[in-house]
């Protein structure tokens, strides 16, 4: 450990507000503003070219959460490090409370009514869990990660929320959570043989599931199975499990290269693609703005993800690196699962598209991620946790 580095670290332990503001990652924030604006436009179209009932609320929420995110992004990374466990604890309390005080909608209990907004703790607990794991792994050495028994604690930590979310039921979100856990362990330095076992297990389980669905036949299959089976057959159960995918595909396909025009996507405007302001907003975008519009949005998302990756690479602390990379992966999963299910590549689950989908909790989680990424970017060189203590 060279003294230069030590001195640099020590010098930068406390950044002035001016320092922080001057190193805010403007491109990231501008990307967020652009994507949010597209989201507002889509909400405006989904509401029948009106501010009511979606676009108005959406723009207010975005503005509010964005402002909060900028403020939170200026907060020292070490504060976030310190509150990581608390954040997890608080979000876990909310998640546990859902079965008791939650609201039911579409046969799922996911929401808590907070008067000003309904909160979906499953969205927030992901951030809490990722922060907690990042903090835990920040303090785990390369050697420790080589010992499978040291994985018991983080896995146990992840298992509880995963189970609770699966019970809501919200299979998509719980699997995404597991995937994030996998990503953070992988990035932290999980041994390759364990990674291979994990990947193998995922493939085996998927294969077993699909195979079982196929053997049982459509009628006997449960609704999870049906959602998978309709991916393989365009004509299957068009009134039931295949309805969303079929309608979304038709709407997307109708968009063509240039799209039908803003507010002109008839298939969406007449209500044949349900939930086209939330989980199926992609089909609305695709019908009205076509291939060009969708590629622009995908490109913007790619830039956002790239920015997250660069943030992770720039960070000097393991906490910052893991947190930035996993939050980015989480955003990636949102995008891939949502867009993939819209286009009939993945089974239909409850999965919003960041910035574009209506809904406060996911937006809070997304903006929270933006805030953390901003903080990590600003405090890229700040040592965190035991590293920091050690260097002091």
């Amino acid at each position: 450990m060279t003294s230069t580095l030590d001195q640099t670290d020590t010098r930068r332990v406390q950044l002035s507000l001016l320092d922080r503001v001057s190193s805010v990652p403007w491109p990231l924030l501008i990307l967020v503003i652009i994507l949010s604006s597209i989201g507002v436009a889509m909400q405006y179209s989904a509401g029948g070219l009106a501010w009511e009932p979606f676009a108005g609320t959406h723009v207010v929420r975005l503005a509010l959460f964005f402002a909060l995110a900028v403020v939170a992004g200026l907060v020292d990374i070490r504060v976030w490090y310190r509150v990581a466990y608390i954040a997890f604890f608080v979000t876990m309390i909310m998640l546990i409370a859902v079965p008791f005080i939650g609201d039911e909608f579409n046969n799922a209990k996911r929401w808590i009514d907070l008067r000003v907004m309904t909160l979906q703790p499953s969205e927030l607990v992901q951030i809490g869990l990722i922060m907690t794991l990042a903090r835990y792994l920040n303090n785990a050495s390369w050697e420790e990660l080589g010992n499978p028994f040291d994985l018991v604690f983080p896995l146990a930590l992840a298992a509880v929320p995963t189970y609770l979310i699966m019970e809501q039921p919200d299979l998509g979100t719980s699997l995404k959570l597991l995937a994030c856990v996998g990503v953070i362990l992988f990035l932290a330095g999980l041994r390759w043989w364990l990674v291979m076992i994990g990947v193998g297990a995922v493939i085996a389980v998927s294969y077993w599931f699909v195979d079982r669905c196929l053997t049982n036949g459509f009628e006997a299959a449960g609704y999870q199975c049906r959602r998978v089976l309709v991916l393989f057959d365009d004509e299957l159960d068009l009134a039931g499990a295949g309805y969303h995918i079929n309608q979304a595909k038709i709407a997307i396909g109708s968009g063509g290269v240039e799209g039908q025009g803003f507010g002109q996507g008839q298939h969406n405007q007449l209500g044949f693609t349900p939930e086209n302001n939330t989980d199926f907003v992609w089909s609305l975008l695709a019908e009205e703005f076509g291939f060009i519009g969708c590629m622009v949005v995908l490109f913007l998302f790619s830039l956002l993800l790239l920015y997250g990756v660069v943030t992770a690479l720039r960070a000097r602390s393991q906490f910052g690196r893991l947190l930035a990379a996993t939050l980015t992966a989480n955003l990636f999963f949102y995008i891939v699962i949502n867009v993939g299910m819209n286009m009939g590549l993945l089974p239909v689950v409850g999965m919003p598209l960041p910035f574009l989908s209506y809904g406060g909790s996911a937006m809070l989680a997304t903006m929270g991620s933006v805030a953390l990424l901003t903080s990590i970017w600003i405090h890229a060189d700040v040592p965190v946790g035991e590293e920091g203590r050690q260097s002091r």
Partner: protein
Amino acid sequence: MTARDGKKRESGFTRRLVLAATIQGAALAGLGYRLYSLQVPRQDDFLADSFDIRTVTRYDAPTRGIILDRFGRQLAGNEQSYNLMFYPERKAKRIETNDTAIVRRAAALIEASPFLTERMIEQLDIGQDVIAGEGRLLSEITAEDFDLIAEVGPGRWPGFGAIERFGRYGLTYKVVSSRAKDEARAIEEILSILPLSTEQQRTINRRIVEAKQINAEGGVLLAEDLSWGQVARLKARALDLPGAEIDVAEKRFYHYPGTAAHALGYVSQVQPQDLLGDNDRMLRRPNAKIGRKGIERTMEKSLRGRAGRRIMEINAFGQEQRVVSRVPPIPGRVIRSTIDLGLQTYAEQRLAEQPISESEMIRAGAAVVMKVDTGEVLAMASHPTFDQSIFTSRITNSVWNELINDEHKPLVNKCSAEHYPPGSTYKMVTMLAAMELGISPREQVTCSGKTEVGPQTFYCWKRDGHGRMDMEAALVESCDTWYYEMSQRIGPEKMSEVAGRLGFGDRLMIDVAGETRGVVPNENWKRNSLGQSWFDGDTVQASIGQGYVLTTPLQLATMTARIANGGRAVRPHLIVPDLLYPAEDLGFKAEHLEIVRRAMDRVTNTDQGTAYRYTQVEEPSLRIAGKTGTAQVARLSVGERLRMLEDVRSLDYDRRNHALFVGYGPVKNPRYACAVIIEHGDSGGRSAGPVVLDLLQAAIVGNSGGQPNMVNDRYNLVGRNDEA
């Protein structure tokens, strides 16, 4: 933690993150590729799918052509009717719904009785069976028939199948695209192998048509003839009733139920045979009606019009958003009939009120009035009549059975579809035939009351005999003996030839179908249809319109018109034609016809005439000429004959003679001809004569100044034809 360890962690992290980012990039590229493959090459397919899903096609019924009388008064029109339709097909287009619950909701909204509610649910089930299920259940069948149909059906009888449920068996039918001829054969074969009553066969036929209609429409008819209130309630709750639609249709409306029922005909449910060779969309709407009998049937194609087509955009809840394209229906042609409503009404009333004896009223009869110069039928009354409007709504089996089992056949048009022995009204034929063969009108025959021809003895109606009779006197007094004697000189060929020229033995109507030919016997006819040879006695019988001779009242009226108009071949018609060709000459000599007409005048207006007591008129412009006919329908014994003369009521109704009368008027410059038959009316002069007189006078007076209502005024007919 060592620095080395930290380095290892960092470099490991960097490598792994680059790998993860690469995977992310690849995944996003994959999404881009999927996007491309959905949107760029397949856009047209998806646009077509989208159009298909968000639009529905509805066929709009055209207004059925109205039927007017000759003065433009509406006889058959239409009234608006609101029907509740349900389209289960929508189910495939939106999120799963409980159709039964929707139908129950609709039933509650229209306050349907429990019975109607059940029928609505049943209709829904039928619709689902036809559109998406196993097919329409046609009939219950036995286990053996089940085996047979299950085995043979699929190959030989396309569409037909057999199902088993709870140990019982059923015959099902599903619409398959096969050739109409194959299907007709299949229906025929299946109906012939299954032991079914005619009623069951009727039911099966109806169900097959219903299945076709439901299949073509994609929906079922839940309830008919909704009130305004019911429509309003349904519309207000349309959001809760996805798949339910109000169909604005029109229903045939007969302004004067029962009047001219046989001439107009009626509309009723489509039958399987109606669909053969007629691909019109209109016949495949649920509960479609088709014209039966009379003008409604003959002019069906013109009256029906052409269906319009509407493509509407709907939202996911099945509510109409806008009309994408619309081809308006083409209304059916307006048909102007030759019927004079006033005269028709009067004819029916007059027939219905005619007594056949001192204490008995008419049970069945017919009257035809036509213009002698054109053949336009002004009135065509058949008694008893029926209410055409009962077929407009679903007719129950009991009503139907009552109608077809009525011994007086109300559904049969006795003017043209029923034939009768004409009796003495046929004597003009024999008379003209005699003159054409050069027999002098002045030649006399002595009537002693009977004539012997070969081994048989033929009696004149007047037992004491008429004494010496010339040609004219023989018609005036209706002396049978004269005709018996002359028939032997005329022979059957000449007699049938003249009869043919006067319109007998053939269908005469120019425009409306449904006539019977009647019979004009001769040697050929008898050999061909009875396989027997001709006897002189047959000629004797034919000469007075008995024996094998059968004619319709329409033919009798036509004959009278042809005699009255100077021998021109007018043909009766019920629809005012665009163009009427002048009738050709029948080749009768004017002086021959003149003699016949003079004789007919004397029948009614001189005291020797057989109808004098009933038809004599002082006022010259209202005088009519005519001929009585009393046709024997059963071979009566001498005792019966004597009893009949004393009191006709002592004889069984159906053994009594038919009463006929043909006439024209006015005597000078004849304009109208009329024929009346009163079934079992006993005496032509007494029963039928006054009817003919009244009808001809009504025609003469009613049309003299082109004032249609004069008939009403004069005869004080109340209400029925007042259009105000």
